[in-house]
């Protein structure tokens, strides 16, 4: 019996050790973004200087602006297209359905670098000038897959009963979509959109290959800063990014929760 408890103790110790491993680097970054010392990783005092400096870095602000444009545009379009794909898969039978299903998952599973180089090759092939537009197109493409996965899971949870019930009660297929399907999957669509925005906001690989002049996104800017050398400004911008992303994710998780209660009734 005592051996059993010891096992349990070490299991707990291990688990919290792993969580420390996961969170320590992030917390260290955040803490040191307020550190006065520029070169060495030694705590010398609290300062907000690095954050102040970010605000005067025109290149950085440009890249934030670009990231926002790319994120918002690609999210809007990918959410619509991804939701349509999920609805089509949910509702209809058509030739090549299995193939289409596989293609919808593929952008998630193939290595990012492969997708990046294939898009670059394609853009050059069709002679599209690389810039912000090329990044947006690329982001829409992989985000369709992410939105699809989330919305499809919601539709699967909803089943076909509710839609049948609506039709039975006299709703046309448009009314069914408008008054039943859309409201029920809405939390899924919104969390899909949040997800898409987060992924777009964080993406470096695809943008790195497909952005041209004037298309520098925030991660690309951060990447070149890191390549140039470790500075407290990177800590500061990292901290802001981390907090921003966490906010988005918590929001998505929240919506997910609301949805799950709705789902249990629906099925």
């Amino acid at each position, binding site marked *: 019996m005592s051996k059993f408890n010891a096992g349990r103790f070490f299991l707990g110790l291990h688990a919290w050790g792993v969580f420390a491993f*996961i969170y320590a*680097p992030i917390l260290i970054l955040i803490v040191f973004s307020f550190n006065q010392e520029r070169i060495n990783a030694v705590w010398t005092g609290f300062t907000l200087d690095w954050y102040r400096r970010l605000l005067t870095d025109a290149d950085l602000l440009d890249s934030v602006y670009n990231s926002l444009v790319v994120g918002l545009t690609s999210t809007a379009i990918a959410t619509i297209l991804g939701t349509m794909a999920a609805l089509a898969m949910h509702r209809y039978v058509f030739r090549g359905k299995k193939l289409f299903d596989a293609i919808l998952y593929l952008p998630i599973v193939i290595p990012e670098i492969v997708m990046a180089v294939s898009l670059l090759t394609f853009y050059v092939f069709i002679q599209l000038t690389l810039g912000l537009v090329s990044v947006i197109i690329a982001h829409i493409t992989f985000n369709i897959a992410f939105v699809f996965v989330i919305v499809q899971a919601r539709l699967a949870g909803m089943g076909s009963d509710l839609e049948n019930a609506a039709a039975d009660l006299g709703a046309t297929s448009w009314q069914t979509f408008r008054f039943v399907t859309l409201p029920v999957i809405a939390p899924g669509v919104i969390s899909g959109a949040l997800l898409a925005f987060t992924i777009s906001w964080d993406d470096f690989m695809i943008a790195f290959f497909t952005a041209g002049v004037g298309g520098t996104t925030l991660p690309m800017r951060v990447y070149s800063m890191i390549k140039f050398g470790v500075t407290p400004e990177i800590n500061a911008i990292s901290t802001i990014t981390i907090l921003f992303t966490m906010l988005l994710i918590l929001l998505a998780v929240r919506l997910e929760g609301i949805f799950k209660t709705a789902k249990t009734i629906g099925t």
Partner: protein
Amino acid sequence: MKSLQKYITLGPPAIWLGIFFVAPLLIIFVYSFFERGIYGDIVYTFSLDNYLRAIDPLYAKTLWRSTWISVVSTLICLVLGYPLAWYIARQSAKMKKLLLVLLIVPFWTNFLVRTYAWIFILRTEGLLNNTLLSLGLISSPLEILFTQTAVIIGLVYTYLPFMVLPIYVSIEKLDRALFDACRDLGATSWQSFKSIMLPLTKPGIISGCILVFVPCLGAYITPDLLGGAKSLMVGNLIQVQFLAARDWPFGAALSFIVMAIVLLLLFAYARWGTNNFDKAAEAK
């Protein structure tokens, strides 16, 4: 009427993915059989040279290294992840949920930033060395950054949740009564773990291993930022072909080799049940 609705719903996403996803993949597939011209242009003659070059020792070394690094990272993830999944599965429902969120949330924060955090910690004048030096535990800084070790740390750090989630799901699915029955029949903890839990959670383990191995194999940023010249992986090799050497056909061939390995593994994975995969895909 119904078929019109069908085409309006299906058409736009299908056309979009056809143009911007399938077509690009087809193009690099075709390119992988062409050759590079003197000026980095593309000579349109069919040849298998690019695939043969990939197994030339010069490049095979990188492919081999990528595989090796990925295998080691996967195993470390398994060793760290299995007990963690086990621990989470044994908590109360509320605690489970909290721990799973805790596990996934950092995963969503910027990949670059998380990798940068390790540069900050591991570099010669970084936090780890500073701390160890000032504590007198070492006399000269450890050279970890820009080595394979750093790459492996970075990969494990990044992909650990992919290991934990499927294993957690497979443990969660187990009936607690099985464990009790096993103990009741006189097995020790270790025996019941070995004879019952390990075989029954095997699908989860295999899923986890594939889900970690696949992205490790295609990694680019981690080896680029944390690794040195001697720890380049195939992702870096592809990048060099496209952006520096301008040998697109060879880069395309390398891409296809990586993709073929990945898809083969995923196909094998699909036979182990798709449930776990959906979860991990959502997490990603």
